[in-house]
């Protein structure tokens, strides 16, 4: 049937390089010279007006980093990264910190508009809507604008850039920064410690339920700028906070390195919910030019009955290396990991989680949905361990892979280790393919091949999407469909 052939050709033409958010904004930029040495570390610290102890911390990390090697155990391959070929600092030039959105560079606002983040609208709507989203917009390493600060202040919640927190709340920062991800945790985390330029800081005091979802939109914009974000979230006794992180990046030829560190600390009876939609540029059809996403995310359930929940929708990046984890230290604490990882084109994903059961009666739950299409490779790597004192520890893991086409790969690498005889770990895993019969059935009802794929995939990931806040779930669903365009045929 010639019509079929024509469609196949057409579908092939729609490819990953038609990246929906591939544009950049021209802004004046204040940039550090290319390369990395102690002077660059000092420059970053000086630009941020940091106290001496912070500079010392960075320099210590830098010196340790020089002795470390890149990890090679992940199932990903890429040419060597020239760490001296990257600008480690870039900031949009601003005359003064903006007091409201009106003072923000219109070009930035325009960029956000293209991305579908109506900042301005959000503020206007703030008074009428019941569900409020505060956006700490990170634009090329510097927080340009922070909204809703006043309202959060009333509740006693601190939500600001990490740079500001270092200056304004040094005691809190000193107490917790690096306490979950130590300086020498891994190559990329150590690098981040030396050169991080900005990120978010959240502190929710005792007994406070954060009155709104906190949201940060990250965005890489400046050419050749490594992005080293640092996020620290602390929930005091009985506190609750839900944090949303979403990323989109413009199209680039050079590879962009992104090595963020996120640390969460939950004290007694506290709960932190951290949701991510990640959509960095995945590279062109040959995998050229995509973002390298080497992220360290870890939560510490430090208090009794505390809870940390990670939900992630990963659709972007050429390479993803990411294992949001929970240290279940407090008795009766709980860790959750819900993940959708979509790979298409030449993308490589090696992602999963670690649930480290240290305390008594700690529980964890892992639901991972991997979708591979094109010529991509998608690996789930997860570790569940119970230490000697973790009496009554329980884990449930469900790990499903869906293959679209026959040139992609799905891999599952679970590690399990129990040093306590009373621990109970369950692991379920399935791998399936969208069947031609399912496709035909949907098409017979009038859905195009792409619509049919999107529908079947959405059914596959439903359990995880349900964990996301409503607005985010809708966005994520759209993103998954966009990411899989060109995968049928």
């Amino acid at each position, binding site marked *: *049937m010639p019509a079929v052939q024509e469609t196949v050709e057409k579908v092939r033409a729609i490819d990953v390089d038609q990246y929906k958010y591939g544009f950049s904004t021209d802004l004046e930029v204040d940039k550090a010279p290319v390369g990395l040495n102690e002077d660059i570390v000092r420059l970053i610290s000086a630009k941020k007006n940091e106290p001496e102890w912070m500079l010392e911390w960075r320099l210590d990390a830098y010196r340790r980093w020089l002795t470390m090697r890149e990890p090679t155990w992940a199932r990903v391959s890429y040419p060597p990264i020239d760490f001296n070929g990257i600008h480690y600092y870039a900031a949009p030039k601003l005359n003064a910190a903006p007091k409201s959105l009106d003072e923000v560079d219109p070009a930035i606002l325009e960029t956000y508009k293209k991305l579908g983040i109506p900042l301005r609208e959000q503020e206007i709507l703030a008074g009428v809507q019941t569900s409020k989203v505060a956006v700490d917009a990170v634009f090329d390493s510097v927080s340009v604008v922070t909204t809703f600060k006043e309202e959060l202040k009333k509740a006693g919640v601190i939500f600001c850039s990490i740079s500001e927190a270092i200056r304004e709340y040094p005691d809190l920062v000193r107490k917790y920064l690096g306490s979950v991800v130590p300086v020498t945790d891994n190559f990329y985390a150590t690098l981040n410690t030396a050169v991080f330029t900005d990120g978010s800081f959240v502190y929710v005091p005792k007994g406070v339920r954060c009155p709104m979802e906190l949201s940060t939109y990250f965005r890489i914009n400046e050419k050749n700028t490594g992005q080293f974000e640092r996020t620290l979230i602390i929930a005091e006794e009985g506190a609750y906070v839900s944090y949303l992180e979403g990323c989109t990046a413009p199209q680039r030829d050079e590879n962009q390195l992104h090595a963020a560190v996120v640390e969460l600390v939950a004290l007694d009876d506290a709960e932190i919910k951290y949701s991510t939609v990640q959509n960095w540029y995945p590279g062109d059809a040959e995998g050229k030019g995509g973002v390298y996403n080497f992220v360290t995310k870890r939560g510490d359930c430090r208090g009794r009955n505390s809870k940390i929940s990670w939900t992630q929708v990963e659709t972007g990046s050429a390479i993803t290396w990411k294992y949001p984890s929970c240290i279940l230290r407090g008795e009766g604490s709980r860790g959750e990991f819900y993940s959708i990882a979509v790979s298409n084109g030449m993308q490589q994903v090696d992602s999963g989680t670690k649930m480290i059961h240290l305390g008594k009666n700690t529980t964890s739950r892992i639901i991972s949905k991997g979708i591979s299409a094109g010529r991509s490779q998608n690996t789930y790597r997860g570790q569940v361990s119970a230490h000697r004192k973790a009496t009554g520890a329980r884990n449930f893991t469900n790990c499903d892979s869906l293959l679209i086409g026959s040139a992609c790969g799905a891999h599952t690498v679970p590690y399990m280790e129990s040093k306590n005889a009373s621990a109970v770990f369950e692991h379920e895993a399935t791998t399936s393919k969208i069947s031609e019969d*399912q496709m*035909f059935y*949907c*098409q*017979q009802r*009038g*859905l195009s091949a792409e619509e049919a794929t999107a529908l079947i995939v959405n059914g596959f990931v439903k359990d995880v999407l349900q964990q996301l806040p409503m607005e985010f779930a809708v966005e994520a669903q759209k993103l998954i469909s966009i990411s899989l365009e060109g995968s049928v045929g």
Partner: protein
Amino acid sequence: MLEIRNLHVQIEDKKILNGLTLTVNDGEVAAIMGPNGSGKSTLSYVIAGKEDYEVLDGEILLDGQNLLEMEPDQRAAAGVFLAFQYPLEIPGVATMTFLKAAMNAQRKQRGEDELATPDFMKRVRAAADKLQIGQDMLKRALNVGFSGGEKKRMEILQMALLEPRFCILDETDSGLDIDALKIAADGVNALRGGERSFLVITHYQRLLNYIVPDSVHVMAAGKVVRSGGKELALELEANGYADYRSQAA
């Protein structure tokens, strides 16, 4: 009007249809009967546009449009509906969601506006009630864990909602007890009328007691070997397919 002319089809080098010719007029209910392996299901798949089947010769026209040049979803939008013998399961997709996606996809192809949710709900509820399909079933993932009878009723529900021009029922009676069969048949009969025509594929005469055809066609070895009125079905019931088997060979 559906016209099939001199249709030759093979799958993986095996010839299934050998010059099949058949016309179904507007408003007509045509029954196709025949022994196992005579090509009945292949015929339904080829009309609906399933891949895997290679059309060597012949044509299929629906109101003069050449179906063979259209994708399965385009054929659906043009009014072709196939009630599957074995409906597929779509895990995680609520039946309601699927119905809405299908209806709106067809409307989009035809250049019509999407259905408003209240309108959609009203239509679904009305059609579901007639088929004794409860609200809870509509909330469950499509066909997942449905009984044989539930799956077939769900096919008829989709048929009712999509308002097709030309319906194919592929062994809708298989696996149904008599009560389920009656519900399904009533559902189909309610859709009869106007220009809508049906191709009812079945092994047994039983279904035709409930869905009374205007014409009966006997298939053997990939073509129609005999056509007649509804009395032909009774004759087949009495004598079996033995005569046609030898005739085809």
